[in-house]
Structures are given as structure tokens and as C-alpha cells.
């Protein structure tokens, strides 16, 4: 059938393009690279060690204020004024002045005189340490020792969320991440591929090849062939990414953790962090394993295709109305991108309260449902809502395709004059 010939051509021309191959292979590596880079920065941080001179008139801190990885303390003697004048500015980054103070006072103000700003991180480091010391002093005077303090301070409560009906455990936080990621990906894809369709339609109109094709096939076949072809390109890209990310997870992660083990300091940090989260880490893995990935992937594909088809039809219709002027196209594209963005906005709120009225509305309304419903699915959605949403989406894309067909077939041959929306309305009514 001729539509297949068109689909084949639309698919092959795009997939063979250098830009497609490069982009598809590059983006996962880019993400991985960025992620690795962020990880390294977080762990190593800046190697700058700040040297702080301390004048302690309360005499509480000399033995207790300890050198940290990034902050070194050196205690001085003398008066504040003479230190301010004579302190070797090359040797020290700042001067910490601790006057004598009342341990039990509610607010104590110390002062830090700096050469250059020492930065928020160091500031917090210092403040935290000072606070810790004062707190433990107060504890000592109240009769509590350090070990008792540790027990008091352990965060021991972990809320484990389970479904009322069947007791399966899930985590709001994990669902949040999955939901958000899916919603974001859908948003980007619908926008990106929808615009690809639009640009292709515009090209065919402005360089007049549309007329030649339309003398051989019905305009609707050309439009449909193009939309389906681009959909296949999108699917190909997603599949390649899934495969690449899968390979990375299986091979790459062990490599990365092996690399981190070489640096003992890093290992200690990681080990320390892991030790405290040991129990929650196990819980997280358990929840990840029990998440119904099959269901999520299937719904992802459904909403990807459904949402794409709905919007691609609209983009095709808009592309057929535009004349040579590229500026004009923005005015036509805006009404279509607004619901997509709206969907994203609703999703961001729905993800915090997946069963609110707004979330339910957003996941049923066909223009926003792909993004919103997809984000809700990891949290569990009542079956009737899923079915209703799916049905409405199908009706939605059938409707937009029908509408787009009527607009497209007249629009692509209409050159020269600017097409008003009123005229477009007439085309919809005409046979």
C-alpha cells in the first residue's frame, strides 16, 4: 500500500541522517558523563584547605576545635586589635574571634574577619563544629554523656508505605523519581518529534513537492505516512537508549564503584554513608525489584504513542498553514505547545499529591493525560481511571487526526495569502 512506501521513506531519510545517529548515541553518553562528573565533584570537592586563625578568649575550644579536611585551625594569643593588624594575611584566610561567653545563653555571636570570603561551605563547617562543641558541653553539664547523646539523636523512624488493599510495599520517593522521569521524557519527545513533523510539512509546502505527491496519493496518506514514520524514528531512538543504558548499568556501574575504591578517603565517606543507610538501601532495592516494570514500560509506550499521535496531527495541520514566513509559524505553534507545557506543570503538582482532583483531571484530559497519567502510574492508579484515560486518549488522537486531515489537504496547496482561522473553520465543515 502506498502509505507504507511513504512511511518507509520518511523513516529511512531520518534514520540515515548523520545528526540522528550522532544524537542518539551521544545523549546517553552525555548524561552518563555528566552524572559521573557531578559525582566526582561531589565527592572530591575543591581541594582548597582554608586556614583559620583563632583567638579564643573563652578558652573553651583549643583542644576541641579539630582540623577538618577543608578547614585548619591555628590558635593564637594576643589582643584582637594587634592580631587584626599583624596577622600574616598570606598564611591565614580568616580570623575567628571567640569572646568569653555564657554557655547557656540562647544566642552567641562569634566573629570571623576575612581576607576574602571563605565561602558558605567553610562557614557552615565552622559553625556546625562550634555548635556541636557547645551542645556537648551543655549536655555534659546536664549530665548526659556522648554515647547517650548518640542514641538520643538517631533518626529511628522509617515510614514504610503499604497498599491498604494488598499490602504491597511501595515508596513515594521512588515513585516520585520514576514518575517525574517518565513525565519529563514524554514531554520532551512529544515536543521534539511533533516539531519534526511540522518542519517536514512546511518544507514540502514551501518547496512545492507537496503538489507532486498529492497528485499521486491522497493528502491524508502523505500526512499519516509522515506521522507514523516519525513515530518509528522516535521508538527506534528510545529502544537504542534503553539498550545503551542497560549495557551501562550492567558493565559500567561495577567499573565506577571499582574506581572509587582506589581512593581510601572516598571509600570511607561512601562506606560511612552506606553504613547509616544500610537498612534503607536494602529497602530501596527491594522496592525497585518489586516495582512492576513491565506495566510501567507498557503504559509508557502507550502514552508515548498516543500523546505523540495526538500532537503530531496538530503539528502537521499547523505546518500546512504556514507560508514562506517562518515568523508566522510561531503564532500558529503556540496554541499547541501551551497544552503540552500545561501538562508538564500539572504533572509537577500531581506528583506530590497523585490523587488530588487536579491530578485526576489532568490524567483524563487527552491533551495533558500522557504526561500527567504517566507520572501517576508508579504510585498506583485505579483501573477505571486508566481505562477511561486510555479511551479518551484514543478518541483524542482519532479526533485530531480527522481534523488535521481536513486542514492539511487544503492548506498544503494554498500559497501566498495568509490563512485566517475563520477560513480554516470552513474547511472543517466542508466535505
Amino acid at each position, binding site marked *: 500500500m*502506498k502509505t507504507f*512506501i*511513504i512511511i518507509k*521513506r520518511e523513516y529511512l*531519510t531520518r534514520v540515515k541522517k548523520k545528526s540522528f545517529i550522532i544524537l542518539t548515541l551521544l545523549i546517553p553518553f552525555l548524561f552518563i558523563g555528566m552524572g559521573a562528573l557531578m559525582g566526582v565533584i561531589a565527592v572530591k570537592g575543591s581541594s582548597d584547605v582554608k586556614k583559620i586563625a583563632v583567638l579564643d578568649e573563652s578558652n573553651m575550644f583549643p583542644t576541641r576545635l579539630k582540623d577538618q579536611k577543608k578547614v585548619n585551625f591555628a590558635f593564637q594569643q594576643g589582643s584582637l586589635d594587634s592580631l587584626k593588624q599583624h596577622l600574616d594575611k598570606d598564611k591565614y584566610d580568616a580570623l575567628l574571634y571567640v569572646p568569653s561567653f555564657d554557655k547557656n545563653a540562647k544566642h552567641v555571636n562569634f566573629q570571623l574577619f576575612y581576607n576574602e570570603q571563605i565561602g558558605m561551605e567553610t562557614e557552615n563547617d565552622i559553625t556546625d563544629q562550634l555548635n556541636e562543641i557547645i551542645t556537648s558541653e551543655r549536655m555534659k553539664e546536664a549530665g548526659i554523656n556522648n554515647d547517650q547523646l548518640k542514641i538520643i539523636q538517631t533518626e529511628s523512624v522509617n515510614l514504610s508505605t503499604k497498599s491498604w488493599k494488598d499490602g504491597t510495599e511501595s515508596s513515594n520517593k521512588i515513585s516520585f523519581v520514576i514518575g517525574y522521569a517518565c513525565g519529563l521524557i514524554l514531554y520532551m519527545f512529544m515536543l521534539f518529534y511533533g516539531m519534526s513533523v511540522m518542519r517536514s510539512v512546511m*518544507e*514540502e509546502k514551501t*518547496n*512545492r*513537492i*507537496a*503538489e*507532486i*505527491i*498529492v*497528485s*499521486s*496519493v*491522497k493528502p491524508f496518506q502523505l500526512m499519516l505516512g509522515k506521522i507514523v514514520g516519525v513515530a518509528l524514528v522516535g521508538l527506534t531512538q528510545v529502544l537504542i537508549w534503553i539498550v545503551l543504558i542497560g549495557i551501562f548499568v550492567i558493565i559500567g556501574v561495577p567499573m565506577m564503584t571499582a574506581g572509587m575504591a582506589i581512593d581510601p578517603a572516598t571509600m570511607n565517606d561512601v562506606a560511612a554513608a552506606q553504613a547509616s543507610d544500610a537498612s534503607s538501601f536494602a529497602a530501596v532495592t527491594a522496592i525497585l525489584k518489586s516495582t512492576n516494570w513491565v506495566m510501567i514500560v507498557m503504559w509508557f509506550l502507550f502514552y508515548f504513542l498516543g500523546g505523540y499521535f495526538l500532537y503530531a496531527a496538530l503539528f502537521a495541520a499547523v505546518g500546512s498553514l504556514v507560508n514562506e514566513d517562518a515568523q508566522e509559524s510561531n503564532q500558529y505553534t503556540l496554541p499547541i505547545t501551551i497544552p503540552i507545557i500545561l501538562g508538564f506543570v500539572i504533572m509537577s503538582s500531581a506528583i506530590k499529591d497523585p490523587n488530588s482532583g487536579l491530578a485526576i483531571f489532568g490524567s483524563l484530559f487527552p491533551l495533558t493525560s500522557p504526561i500527567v497519567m504517566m507520572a501517576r502510574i508508579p504510585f498506583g492508579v485505579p483501573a477505571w481511571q486508566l481505562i477511561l484515560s486510555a479511551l479518551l486518549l484514543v478518541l483524542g488522537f482519532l479526533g485530531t487526526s480527522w481534523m488535521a486531515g481536513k486542514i492539511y489537504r487544503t492548506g498544503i*496547496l494554498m*500559497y501566498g495569502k495568509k490563512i485566517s482561522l475563520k477560513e480554516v473553520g470552513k474547511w472543517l465543515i466542508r466535505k
Partner: protein
Amino acid sequence: MLLSIKNLKKYYATQKAVDDISFDIPQGSIFGLLGPNGAGKSTLLRMITGIFYQDSGDILFNGEKFDAAKHVAEIGYMPEERGLYKKMKIGEQAIYLAQLRGLSRAEAESRCREWFQRLDMTTWIDKKVEDLSKGMSQKLQFVITVTHKPKLLILDEPFSGLDPVNANVLKDEIFRLAQEGTTVIFSTHRMEQVEEICDKIVLVNLGKKVLDGSVKQIKQDYKENVFSLTLDNPDAVLPTNIQLLKKEQNKLTFHLNEDTNANQVLQHFITQGNSILSFEEILPTLNDIFIKIVQGTSNARAFTTV
């Protein structure tokens, strides 16, 4: 009759683009559709190719009602504004478009190869359309139009933008195809070409048909009895039954009165003792006829409410 148009109408909101036009085109003929800009030619042709639907009237193709889907493989169409996918390779593009006309992939490949060879285009097969010069892309456009051996070839202003050499190549191809049985319609306002090639013409103006007939017939219909006579001795006494229009050295151009026979004029000069060097009837050119008919109507089509 390969193609019959009966009472075709297409009205737009601002003008009657095609207003009750009928004509027939016999198989194997070369048919010219003439008219000034805005006359309705392109709209008419698009209805014949199935791109537009008529508001009323019938189109008969080979005796049966025209059905765009059914007859698509038998019609070839080259629109006035020519366009192709810029970034697609030529060979691929020709095959793709031939497939859309109904050829199988294998057939499309072999036919395209044939035509490329015939028109010296084999070295371009892997080039992209954007790398071609204008003349080359026009050749390509033509090949794409005829690859699938259509019975009816519809060309909208095929000569526009062609240099004389390429215009000639195109003319020869049209002749050759007509000889092989293809029926050709082309719209134009280049009258010289029409006189050279067309068997039959139809002239439209403001959406209506104004002339219909063979080129010979129309010239006869519009002749004004003008003759040109070259004499040995130009300073001769002229007969009374002529009106002298022009005199260049010894060539006289004159209008012959009604009821007068050309023989009488020749006789007059022969009796004088003058020698006749040449004598011929000057038929009006289609250009003249065209202008005469279309003059009086405004040059551009006005917008009216329909």
C-alpha cells in the same frame, strides 16, 4: 476521446475560477490550454489530476468517470511551480515518486535508469537535488513526470524558465511521446510554442472558454484577408479593391476587400507588365488572436463576490 470535460465549474469565495467549461481531447493529440494569467488554467488542470474537486460538472477519462485513485497510474503531472526534496538523492527520489504512481520497486528502478540514460543524466544518480543547476533539475522533473508511462501527460507551463536549448529538448520529447501514443495537455502563454506543436487548442479567459479548435481552423476563422506581395516594380498603380497597409521597398502588405478574389489582384499587376516575385496570405499569429480576444478585458483578475 481520451479526456472529456463537461460543464466544469469551480467557484472560490472571491472569483469564479472555472465557470462552465467543456472540451474534448482526442487520444494521441497535443493539446494546448491557453489563457492570460489568472484565467483559471491551473485550477482546471488540478481538477483533471484529481488534486481539486469540481463544484459541478463531469470529467470523463477514457469513457468512464474520472477517479483519481483508479487512474493515478495513467496520468503524469508536472505542476507549474516545480519542487523536489532538496536533500534526497536524485535516483532515490525518482524511484520513490514512481512507486507512488503505482510502479513496483523493480519496475521503477529499471524505467528510471532508461530515462536517465536517454537524457544523459546517469552521472547524477547519487547527487542531491540541491546540487543541481536549474536546467538539470528541470530535466529531472520531466523524467519524474513520465517514468510511469502515463497515457495522459499534463504539463502546467512546462517551458517557463527554460533556456532555448532545453526548451527545444522538451519540445522534441513531447513530440516523440505523442507519436508513441501519449496524449499531452500543456498550459502556456508562449504562443510560438503552441503554433509549433499543438494540434488543438482551447483559450480560456476569466474562467470561461473563449476559443476551441485546431490551430489551422482558428487561424482561418480569424484571418483578416491580409496578403503580402513582392513585385519587381514597386511603383505600380495599385488596384482599387485593396487597402494598402504597409510598403517596404518592393513588398506590399495589403488588405483585400470583401468579395474580391486574390486572382484579380494578381491579374491587375500581371496585365501591367509587372513581375510577381512572391505572394502569400498572412494568417494572424496566435499571439495576435490572443491579444485581440483578451484585450478589452482587464489585465489582472479582480476580486469579486461570487
